[in-house]
C-alpha cells in the first residue's frame, strides 16, 4: 500500500495483477541534495520512480557545462536502461531532496518476462512512444460527447426545391449549379426526392428523354426527421431504411436535406462542414464567417487523436482555399489568373495550425501592365486581417512593394540576396524557399524556384552561411535546471522547431528539392539518399511532437488576450511524465541533427 501513481505508461501496460506486484514490491528512499543516486559504471539494482524531487542525468565524460544530458522530476522513471544494459552509462544525481520509489531489479525482470508490452516499452524509439501517447489521449474522448449531441440542424444543407414543371435537363443544370446531389420536386403539398442516381437511371437505363418532367421519376416515400433531433438519430434512420439521405421537415415543409456523407464527415471531423462553407461562400462576409471556425476544427481534430501531420495538411489546404477565394473576390480578370499569389513561411510549408501572421508575396509575369496593383494589394491585406490573419511584423505582405514584382525583378532580388549573404538576405531566401502558390498561375513560382535552385544549390559558401542559422539557438536539453523559475519554461520554437525546419530547408536547398513542407522534404531527402530513413523518421516525429505541444499551448491560450501570455514558452512541469520523456528524446534528436549539420557544412569553428 503505497501512493505510487500507476496511471501513466509504462505501468498502463501491466494488468491489475502486475500493478499489485509493483505496489507490493517497491521500497522508498530519500536522496539528499547532490547525493549520487546511481553512478556511472555502477550495476543497476533498482528502477527509480520519483515521487517528489528532481534528479539530473550527467555524462561524466563531458566537461561540467555539457555534462548534463537529462532531467527527471515527479512521476518520471529512470534506471530501467541501466538494468537492461547491466550497468549505468551515466550518473544520476539528486538536484533537490528527492523521494523515490525503488523497484528492485528482480521484480522488474519478472515484470518484463510476464508482460512483453512492458518490456518493449523500454526498447522503443520515439515514434513508437508517440503513438502510445496518442492512444493514451484518445481514451479520454473529451469532445466526443459534443459530436454525439450534435443536432440535425447543424449538419443539414438547404434543400434544392424545383417546381413540378421542371424537365430533367433543367434539373441536371440546377444540380450542377448548386453543387448538390439531390433535389426536391414540389407538387401541391407533397414533395418528391430525385437523386443523381435516379436521373442517371432514367436517362441511360430507361431511356427517358431530357424534356420529361422530373416529377415522373421522383420518389414520394421519404424518410424525414425534425431539425431538433439528434444527428445520430438521422444516421440510424438512414441505416434502417437503407437510404443515403433524409429530408428535414418542419411543419410539413422541407427545410433541409441531410446526406449520409455529410453525417459521416461530421462525425469523423467537422472539416467537411467548414470546407463546405468555404466553397459555398458567395461573399466576403460568408468567407470571414467560415474562416473563423477553423480553430474549433483544429481542437476537434486534436481531441480525436488525428495525427498532427494530417491535421496540418487539412488546415493548410483549407487556408489555401480561403485565400484563393478571397483573391478571386478582390482581384478582377485577367489579373487574378495571370499573376501568382504565394504564401511563405510556415504557411508555405503547410505547418501552421492556428492562423499565423500572413507572409505572402506576388509574382507578376513580365508582360503584364497592372496600373492599380498597389491599391488592390493593400485592400487584399486588409481583407486577410479581417479574416483573422494578423499582419506580418516583418512586413512580408503583398501590400509591401518589396514582395511584389515581375519575374525579372524577383530574379534580380534573388541574385542580390545570394551575393550579399547577410542576415536579412539569408532570411529572405529562406522565406522565399518555402513559398507555395495558392492562387493564380503556379508556373510563375515554379520557374522562380528553378532559378533560385540554380543560383544556390552548388554554392557551398552560401549553403554554409545558410546552415549556420540553424545552430543559432541552443537546444534546451536541461529541461528545468538552468532556469531561475520553473514557470519560465523552455522555448520550444527556438530550441526545437526552428533547428529542424531550417536544417531540413538547407538540405532541401542543397539538393534542389521542390516540396515545401518539412515532412515532405524529409521524405524526398530519404529518397535522394541524403538522410537515412530511420533518422528522417525520428526527425519528423520530433517535429510533430514540438508542434503538437506548442499547438496545445496555443489552443489553451486562444481566449487569453494578455499579450505576455502569447509567447511560445513551454512549462515542462505541466506535462505528463510520458510527454516529458518524449520531449527529452526529441530534443536529443535535435542535438544530433545539429551536429550532423555542422559536420556537413563545416560550422565547427
Amino acid at each position, binding site marked *: *500500500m*503505497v*501512493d505510487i501513481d500507476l496511471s501513466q505508461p509504462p505501468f498502463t501496460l501491466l494488468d491489475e495483477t502486475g500493478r499489485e506486484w509493483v505496489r*507490493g*514490491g*517497491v*521500497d*522508498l*528512499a*530519500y536522496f*539528499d541534495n547532490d547525493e549520487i543516486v546511481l553512478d556511472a559504471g555502477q550495476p543497476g539494482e533498482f528502477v527509480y520512480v520519483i*515521487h*517528489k524531487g528532481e534528479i539530473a542525468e550527467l555524462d561524466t565524460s563531458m566537461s561540467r557545462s555539457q555534462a548534463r544530458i537529462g532531467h527527471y522530476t515527479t512521476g518520471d522513471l529512470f534506471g530501467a536502461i541501466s538494468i537492461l544494459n547491466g550497468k549505468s552509462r551515466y550518473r544520476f544525481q539528486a538536484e533537490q*531532496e528527492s*523521494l523515490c520509489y*525503488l523497484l*528492485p531489479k528482480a521484480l522488474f525482470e519478472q515484470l518484463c518476462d510476464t508482460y512483453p508490452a512492458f518490456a518493449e516499452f523500454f526498447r522503443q524509439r520515439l515514434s513508437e512512444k508517440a503513438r502510445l501517447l496518442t492512444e493514451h489521449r484518445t481514451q479520454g474522448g473529451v469532445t466526443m460527447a459534443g459530436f454525439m449531441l450534435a443536432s440535425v440542424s447543424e449538419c443539414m444543407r438547404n434543400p434544392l426545391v424545383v417546381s413540378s414543371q421542371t424537365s430533367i435537363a433543367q434539373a441536371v443544370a440546377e444540380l450542377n449549379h448548386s453543387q448538390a446531389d439531390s433535389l426536391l420536386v414540389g407538387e401541391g403539398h407533397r414533395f418528391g426526392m430525385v437523386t443523381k442516381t435516379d436521373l442517371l437511371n432514367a436517362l441511360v437505363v430507361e431511356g427517358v428523354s431530357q424534356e420529361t418532367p422530373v416529377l415522373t421519376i421522383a420518389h414520394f416515400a421519404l424518410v424525414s426527421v425534425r431539425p431538433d433531433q439528434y444527428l445520430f438519430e438521422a444516421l440510424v434512420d438512414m441505416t434502417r431504411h437503407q437510404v443515403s439521405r433524409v429530408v428535414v421537415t418542419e411543419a410539413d415543409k422541407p427545410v433541409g436535406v441531410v446526406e449520409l456523407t455529410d453525417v459521416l464527415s461530421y462525425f469523423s471531423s467537422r472539416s467537411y462542414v467548414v470546407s463546405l462553407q468555404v466553397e459555398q461562400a458567395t461573399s466576403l462576409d460568408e468567407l470571414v464567417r467560415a474562416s473563423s471556425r477553423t480553430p474549433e476544427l483544429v481542437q476537434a481534430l486534436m481531441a480525436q487523436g488525428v495525427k498532427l501531420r494530417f491535421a496540418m495538411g487539412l488546415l493548410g489546404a483549407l487556408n489555401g482555399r480561403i485565400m484563393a477565394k478571397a483573391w478571386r473576390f478582390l482581384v478582377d480578370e485577367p489579373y487574378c489568373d495571370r499573376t501568382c499569389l504565394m504564401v511563405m513561411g510556415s504557411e508555405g510549408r503547410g505547418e501552421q495550425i492556428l492562423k499565423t501572421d500572413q507572409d505572402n508575396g506576388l509574382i507578376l509575369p513580365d508582360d503584364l501592365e497592372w496600373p492599380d496593383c498597389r491599391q488592390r494589394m493593400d485592400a487584399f491585406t486588409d481583407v486577410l486581417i479581417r479574416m483573422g490573419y494578423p499582419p506580418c511584423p516583418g512586413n512580408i505582405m503583398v501590400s509591401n512593394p518589396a514582395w511584389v514584382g515581375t519575374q525579372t525583378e524577383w530574379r534580380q532580388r534573388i541574385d542580390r540576396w545570394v551575393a550579399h549573404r547577410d542576415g536579412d538576405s539569408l532570411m529572405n531566401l529562406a522565406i522565399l524557399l518555402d513559398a507555395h502558390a495558392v492562387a493564380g498561375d503556379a508556373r510563375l513560382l515554379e520557374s522562380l524556384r528553378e532559378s533560385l535552385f540554380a543560383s544556390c544549390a552548388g554554392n557551398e559558401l552560401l549553403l554554409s552561411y545558410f546552415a549556420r542559422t540553424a545552430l543559432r539557438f541552443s537546444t534546451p536539453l536541461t529541461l528545468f535546471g538552468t532556469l531561475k523559475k520553473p514557470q519560465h519554461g523552455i522555448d520550444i520554437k527556438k530550441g526545437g522547431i526552428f533547428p529542424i525546419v531550417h536544417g531540413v530547408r538547407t538540405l532541401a536547398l542543397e539538393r534542389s528539392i521542390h516540396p515545401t513542407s518539412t515532412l515532405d522534404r524529409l521524405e524526398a531527402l530519404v529518397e535522394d539518399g541524403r538522410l537515412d530513413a530511420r533518422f528522417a523518421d525520428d526527425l519528423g516525429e520530433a517535429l510533430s511532437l514540438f508542434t503538437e505541444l506548442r499547438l496545445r499551448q496555443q489552443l489553451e491560450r486562444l481566449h487569453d488576450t494578455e499579450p505576455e501570455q502569447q509567447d511560445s514558452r513551454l512549462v515542462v512541469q505541466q506535462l505528463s511524465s510520458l510527454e516529458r520523456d518524449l520531449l527529452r528524446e526529441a530534443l536529443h534528436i535535435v542535438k544530433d541533427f545539429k551536429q550532423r549539420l555542422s559536420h556537413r557544412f563545416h560550422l565547427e569553428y
Partner: protein
Amino acid sequence: MLRTLRRAADRRRQAGGDFGWLFNPYTGNELVAIDCETTGLDPRRAELVSIAAVTIRGERVITSESLDLRMQCPASLDGDSIRIHGLRSVDLEGGECVGDALARLMDFVGNRPLLGWCVEYDVAVINRQLRPRFGFDLPNALIDVSHRYAREMRRKHPELDPDRGFESMAHMLDVPVMGRHTALGDAVTTALMYLRLQRRVLRVG
C-alpha cells in the same frame, strides 16, 4: 521504573516460552515503524481496528516488507472513529481475531526497536490486549518521532513552539503524507519522517 520492573518480571516468566526471544537485546540496524487505527483516543478504552508495521533498513523504507492487519470488528466501533479511519464493520469482515493478529505482529517485529508517532499510545493499546492473552507487555525499545522532532526543533529553532501534529510535522519535514488514516500509510509516513529527522533536515515555514 514500574515499566522496567515489569519487563524484568515478564522476561523471567517468558524465558522458556514461545516469545522469549523478544526479550533479547537487539544489535542490528533495523527499526520497525508501527501505527494502529483504534476506535477511540483513550488508551484505557480504545480497541484495535487495524495494525500496520513497516521495516526501516539503513536509509530505506522497505515497503515491500510490511505488515497490514485488520481485526475482527470490535464492539465499540462507532461512527466517530469510522469517519477517521474509514474502516466500517463490513470492511472488517474476515479480519483476524486479536490474539492471532498480535502473534503475527510480534513475529514480524521481533526484538527490533519500535518507531511511531506518539508510539506510547499505540503500545499502550496493544499492551492492554497483549497482557491478558500472552501475559507480558511489548518489551521492545520505543522511539517516538514526535519527541525526536520536538528536540530537533528546540535545538535549531528555540524561538518556535513546535506543533507536533502529524500533518504539520510532515509538512515541516517536507514528507508527503501517504494514505493518511490508514494504518500502513501512517506507518510509512512516520518512517519517512524518521529518516528525515536522522538527516536533520528541517524546513521552517
